[in-house]
Structures are given as structure tokens and as C-alpha cells.
């Protein structure tokens, strides 16, 4: 019989290295998988691990894909550290996209005297407002009726998805779009300012990095940030200190909803330029993995966002270049998360084989 036994003093170094070990395991699994699928594992791995880093265009694409992941995962890290289990960043992302896209649509139909730089703050604000509103529903239901935030936030994803579909199939559909479920293309003035000529990387990326720094300062340098993080590991200490669990609930949900919303608005106004039913690519769900791989630490979130963005791009390349199924990205993400959880378990516990209980 196998038993897990708590280690008296879990290694701190192992805790930091655990995501790296998990990555190594994932790469190993990937190699085996390529073999089984009859592909050259070296070529497969290079498509996933090397090509996304190769050249200026590849690097800017990596930054572009990492941006929504960074924003969503920072909010989720804040939530999870506050013991609020928001797994609905995807829904908040979509609503942010609807708000940002709606604003862009409005400006496209009724032009105003604003250039991209002038429109950018409005876009960010609209996205934040949308995402925060969506998360506020979760907070309200939890606060008033003690509804489970895991279930509610997840369900709200599907509501958001259907709301988006209704809009693009119905009232917001482009009248000249041959009945495709999409809005008209937004005016050029609503686009997100780009950073490198000819590349899609935009102002969203430095904004996400700025938010990461701000989150780090908030979590580790302010009283409010410290208060939020007490409720999870030590609820009785929070009550003893008089830290409000309601404040933790509302702040963490509003902030994470707002950040996911900003990510949605940037995605819609940036690379997409119009609203379609397929705004997300699953960023909100991937961000959950990102947050945990990043140890719920802002810097970790940035690094693991780039890592997961690499998997996203690698998956697309693997599909087009060596004919592998696109679902492979999801498989690798899952393997990565499982390996990480397994590593963490073995850092906290050790295995004991025993003849009998």
C-alpha cells in the first residue's frame, strides 16, 4: 500500500524549481507523443520550443499572445491568493471584449476626433468596466446568498459566450457582411497603437507588464494587499485582526474581472479589429494554468504567460507545418498543469510503501 507522508520541512528551492521540473516532464511527454503519432520528435519539439522564439516577428507574436494571459493570470493570482476561486476569467474576458468592441463600433459608426492614442484609455476603461461588472455578479451572489463562486463564475462564462453570439448574430451583425456572424471592421482610429512597424505587437504588452509591477507592489507592499492574503491561509487570524472577508471578495473579483475585461477589449480592438463569436481562444481558462505555474506570483505569471503563449503558437505551427491536431496544445497544457501539481505534491509529501495499513 502506498501512503503519502508530510515532509517535515518542504524544500524552498524545490518549490521554486517545481515549474521547471514540470516543464521538463511535459517536454518528455511531448517527445513520446510525437513518436507515437509517427512524427520526428526533434522536429516536433523544435516547432513547439524553438520556432516561437525565432526572429523578430516570432518574438512580437509571442508578446502579443502573452498579453491577455498576463492580464488574466495576474487577476486570478490575486483572487486565488485571497481565497476567492474565480475560474470565470474567460467570461469576464468576453464581456470586456463586448464592451471594448461595442465602444469601437460606436466610434466607427459615429466618428469622433480621436486618434489611436486618444482612444486607447477609453478602450481600456470600457474593457475594465465590462469585466468588472461581470465579476461583480459573482461577488454579489456570493456576498448576499453565499453562492459558490466557483460554480457561478464558471456558469457566467457560458452566459457571456451566448450573449456575444446573440450580438454578432443579431443586432451588431455587419449588414454588408454576407450574413457572416461578425460586426463590421472597426475604424482605424480605434486600433491599439502598435510598437514595432509592421508587427502586430501593441501597447497592450507594456501595459500588461506595468500591471504586473503594480500587482506586485499591491500584494507585497501595501496593507490592503496583505489583508487580502490573510483570509485564505488563516481565516481565524483575519477575523482576529478584523480584516474584512467581504472586502477581500469584492476587491479581488472586481480587480481580476477588470483585468480580464481589459485583455478582452485589447484582443478585440487589437489583432481582431472586429467582433466575432470566437473572440477568446480560451485565454481565460489557460490563465488559470498560467497563474498556478507562475506560483501566483506576478513575476511568475509574466514568465509562465510567455511559456503558455509559446505552446499556443507552437500548436498552431504544428498544425500547419507537420500536420498535427490543434488539440495538442490543450494536451500539453494539461500535462504541464498535472506535472506541476504532482511536483508540488511530492515537495509537500513523500511516498511510503507499506505492507499493511
Amino acid at each position: 500500500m502506498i501512503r503519502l507522508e508530510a515532509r517535515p520541512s518542504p524544500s524552498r528551492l524545490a518549490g521554486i524549481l517545481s515549474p521547471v521540473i514540470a516543464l521538463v516532464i511535459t517536454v518528455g511527454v511531448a517527445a513520446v507523443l510525437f513518436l507515437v503519432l509517427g512524427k520526428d520528435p526533434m522536429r516536433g519539439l523544435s516547432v513547439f520550443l524553438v520556432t516561437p522564439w525565432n526572429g523578430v516577428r516570432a518574438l512580437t507574436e509571442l508578446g502579443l499572445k502573452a498579453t491577455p494571459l498576463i492580464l488574466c493570470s495576474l487577476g486570478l493570482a490575486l483572487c486565488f491568493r485571497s481565497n476567492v476561486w474565480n475560474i470565470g476569467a474567460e467570461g469576464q474576458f468576453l464581456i470586456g471584449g463586448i464592451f471594448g468592441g461595442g465602444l469601437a463600433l460606436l466610434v466607427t459608426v459615429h466618428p469622433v476626433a480621436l486618434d489611436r492614442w486618444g482612444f486607447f484609455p477609453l478602450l481600456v476603461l470600457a474593457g475594465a468596466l465590462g469585466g468588472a461588472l461581470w465579476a461583480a455578479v459573482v461577488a454579489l451572489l456570493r456576498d448576499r446568498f453565499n453562492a459558490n463562486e466557483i460554480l457561478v463564475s464558471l456558469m457566467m462564462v457560458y452566459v457571456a459566450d451566448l450573449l456575444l453570439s446573440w450580438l454578432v448574430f443579431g443586432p451588431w451583425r455587419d449588414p454588408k457582411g454576407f450574413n457572416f456572424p461578425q460586426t463590421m471592421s472597426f475604424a482605424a482610429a480605434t486600433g491599439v497603437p502598435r510598437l514595432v512597424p509592421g508587427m502586430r505587437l501593441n501597447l497592450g504588452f507594456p501595459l500588461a507588464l506595468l500591471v504586473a509591477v503594480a500587482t506586485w507592489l499591491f500584494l507585497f507592499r501595501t496593507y490592503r494587499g496583505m489583508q487580502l492574503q490573510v483570509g485564505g491561509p488563516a481565516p481565524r487570524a483575519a477575523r482576529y485582526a478584523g480584516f474584512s472577508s467581504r472586502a477581500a471578495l469584492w476587491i479581488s473579483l472586481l480587480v481580476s474581472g477588470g483585468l480580464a475585461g481589459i485583455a478582452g477589449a485589447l484582443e478585440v480592438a487589437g489583432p481582431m479589429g472586429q467582433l466575432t463569436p470566437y473572440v477568446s481562444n480560451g485565454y481565460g481558462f489557460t490563465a488559470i494554468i498560467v497563474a498556478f505555474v507562475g506560483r501566483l506570483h506576478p513575476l511568475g505569471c509574466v514568465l509562465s504567460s510567455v511559456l503558455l503563449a509559446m505552446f499556443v503558437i507552437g500548436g498552431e505551427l504544428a498544425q500547419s507545418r507537420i500536420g498535427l491536431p490543434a488539440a495538442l496544445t490543450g494536451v500539453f497544457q494539461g500535462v504541464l498543469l498535472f506535472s506541476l501539481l504532482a511536483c508540488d505534491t511530492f515537495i509537500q509529501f513523500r511516498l511510503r510503501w507499506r505492507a499493511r495499513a
Partner: protein
Amino acid sequence: MTTPRLQLAHVTKRFASLVANDDVALTVEPGEIHAVLGENGAGKSTLMKVIYGALRPDAGEVYWNGTRVEVRSPHEARTLGIAMVFQHFSLFETLTVAENVWLGLSRQVSLQTVREGIEAKARDYGLTLEPERPVHTLSVGERQRVEIVRALLTDPQLLILDEPTSVLTPQAVEKLFATLRQLAKTGCSILYISHKLDEILALCQRCTVLRAGKVVGTCHPKEETTASLSRLMIGAEPPRLQHRERRPGEQVLQVVDLSLPKIDRFGVALENVALEVHQGEIVGIAGVSGNGQQELLAALSGEDPRCREEAVLLFGRSVGRLDAARRRQLGLHFVPEERLGRGAVPGLSLAQNLLLTRTEALRALGWIDRSALRRQAEAIIGRFTVKATGAGAPAKSLSGGNLQKYIVGREIDAVPKVLILAQPTWGVDVGAAAQIRGELLALRDAGCAVLMVSEELDELFEVTDRLYVMAKGRLSPSVATAAASVELIGEWMSGLWPKSPEIPLLEKTGATP
């Protein structure tokens, strides 16, 4: 000369950098009640765990009835005939006494046999115990009896008791001692771990004193005094307290007819509690734990804001529904009984743990001034001689007693107007306990109102000016400490106090049936 029941030679146990037991020798004769005395952190518990097989020593030999043995697990210890009653009980609340005992025995025995065995042992040793009662209906003293009977059913040759009296009324302590003396007469050896000197003088035939992991002496308590024993234990006599005449001022904290239903099945309901504390006095609440003290303190601190607004008055202001932070802003500070997880967040550093109750290091917009915070923590660490690697040490890395010193220090250092403490010196070594009591007296003299809940009657008699007693969720009238006696308080601890006609005087209570 008879063969010793248990003999330890050169036992050494190291934890990383700390040597918990250093070349320890210990001899226990058959039928002897042998005390192991030492401050917290002296290595008593480690030594007992070595004997009971819960820890393996790094070096040294263990002889059992003259034969060298290696005790690899508590199971092997029980097979040898070693039984242990831990300070913290391991009983399932929802099961009956018999079922709890049955769980710890080998599986061949039927429940009926166990039931009969319990009754037989209880009869032999004068322990009142009903095998069919569910454990959650038992008082703490009765629960301890379950543990003792469970140990006795294995017919041990050596019984280890770890601080067994910390949960008992003085009367219950007497009953326990009678049982132990009777047990020793049958030839069973008893290892009695304690830091309470008077108990060791009253009960034990020999005493081994540990200090910093080493044996500093073995003596016959009958030939010693508390002063000489405490010199052996801490290397010096604790300083005597300067107890000055009190000059109580205005009433600052008042509880008016506070009743609260129990918060869960195993809680205690508060009934018509009335209490007042004045400036410049120390008021004590005596009582066996689990009689509503926790509930009362949570209602006073603001952690349980369920009571009526006007049931708790602070400086004449109704605060019954304010949370802990708001009450703290008014000057009420609180030291809870649990240190890890309530008084301190385990994973946070000592400095960060200051922020639970202290806001001096905060700047505009809630910015934390980290160097100010560190200096503040270091000052408390220094003033209360907390043994820690520094202000950055996580709270969970400290021993219980050191963390307690830090938490008490944090609240005393805040110069509160009202200070409420639960078990302020629980698990703290003798020297530091004396310092804490001295600081409390200094606070009192400076005009602070102090309310302390303690199970240690000695401590209450030493520092308080007035005493209340808590039993079954009710609070007695107060009595001036100078006019009270241990016997009186012990009687009141069973719920039998005068001038409260609604309490039947002959009520049978859980604590001393």
C-alpha cells in the same frame, strides 16, 4: 536491588541545528512515580516521544526491564507495556466512550468486552465513567479519564502522562493524584511530565530535571522546595513580582446580560454573563477550559459580532456589533489562546504579523514602511527576549512559547487602554512568564484595564485584583482576589456560587461529578 523498569543511557536526539536531548540518562523503578521537570523547550516532550517510539534517538540505549530494546513505533511501545496519555486528546467527539476505547485496541476484542473492561478499570481506580456516553457530552476532565482508562486497559507497566493537570479543576487534580498513587501501588511505573512544581512535590518520589536538553539533576522532591526545584529548572529563581496597591479608576469595559446561543454543536452557549473591568485593575476569569471562556472572549474581541449592540460597552459606548479592528481602534487589544492561525499567520514573517494588530508602520495609501516595520518587530523581539532568527522569521518557525511571547509583546507594546488575554503565559518558560506578569502589572499601574482568562490558578492569584469564575457558560459574581481561596474558586469552578438563585446548589456538573 531490583531491575529498573526503564533505563535510558546517553540518549541524544538532534533536530537540524538544535540538540533536543543531549546525553540524557533516566532511570525509573517499578512502582515509582517519577517526574520529568523542565521548562518549555527543555526537551521533555522529545524524550517522551523517544521512549514511546514516536521518535528514534540519534544515539544512546534504552533498557526495558533490564533488556536492551529498540522501540521503533508506538505500537511496539504498547506491546512492551508502555502507555501514554497525551496533553491533547485524540477522541472522536461523535462516538461513545466505549467505541473510542475500542478503536485504539487490537481488533480481536469485541465491543462488549471493551465495555466490561472499562467498567472494571473504572471501578478499580475509582474513576466515574459511563461507557455509553458520547464523547462530545463529556467535560475535559472526563475526556482525560477516557484516555487514562484506554491506557490502563492495555495493563501497562509504565504510564507516561504529559502535563495532565492543565485541564483540571483543583478538586479533579486531587482525584487524578489518588488514581495515580493507587496505580503505582500495583507496580505500574509512572512518568509524570510537568512544569508545575507544587504538583511534583505532592505526587512524585523522584524527579529528573532537564534544562536545554541536558539532565541537570535528579532529586527527591520530598527533600526539596519549590524554590530549589525552580533553581534547578531555570538556573535561577524567578524574580518576585512587585504587587502594589491598586487604585482602580473609571469603569471602561462592561458586559451587560450577554447571552449567545452556541455557534456549533460543540460550542458552549453563554447565559446572562455580566462583567465589568475598571482602569488600573487586573481582573481574572478562572475556570476549566471549555466552559464558555472562548465564546465570551470572541464576543469581547469582536471576532464574534453576533451579540446585541448594547451587551458590550467600551468606554460607555455600545460596541457589541463592531468588528475586531474597530474595537482595536478604540483601544481594546486582545491576545487569543491559539497562536498559530489566529494570533499569527503561520507563513508570514514576524514583522508582517505585526500588521494584524498594529498600524504604526503604515504610510499614506496603506503603503507599508518595511524598515519601520522591521525595527518595530526587532524592538519587540528584544524586549521580550523572543528566540527567533530575526524579524524576517516566519511565525511557524518559532516554538509555541516564543511565539506566545511575541504575540503578548505585540499587544503590550501597543499600550492598550483595555487588554484582554487568554492564557497569557501558556507554554511560556518560567522566566518569561514572570516577565509577562510583570509587564501586565506595569500596564495596570499605568491605568490600563486588564482582563485575563487563565487555567492556572497560581497565576491568577499572583497577578489579579479581582476574580470571576466561569462554568457552563455562566459567570460568577466577582470576588476580590485577596479575599478568595483556592478551595473557594475550585468550588465555584463547578458552577456552585452563591447569590445566584437560578443555579441549583446541588447541580451535578461535568467538571466534578
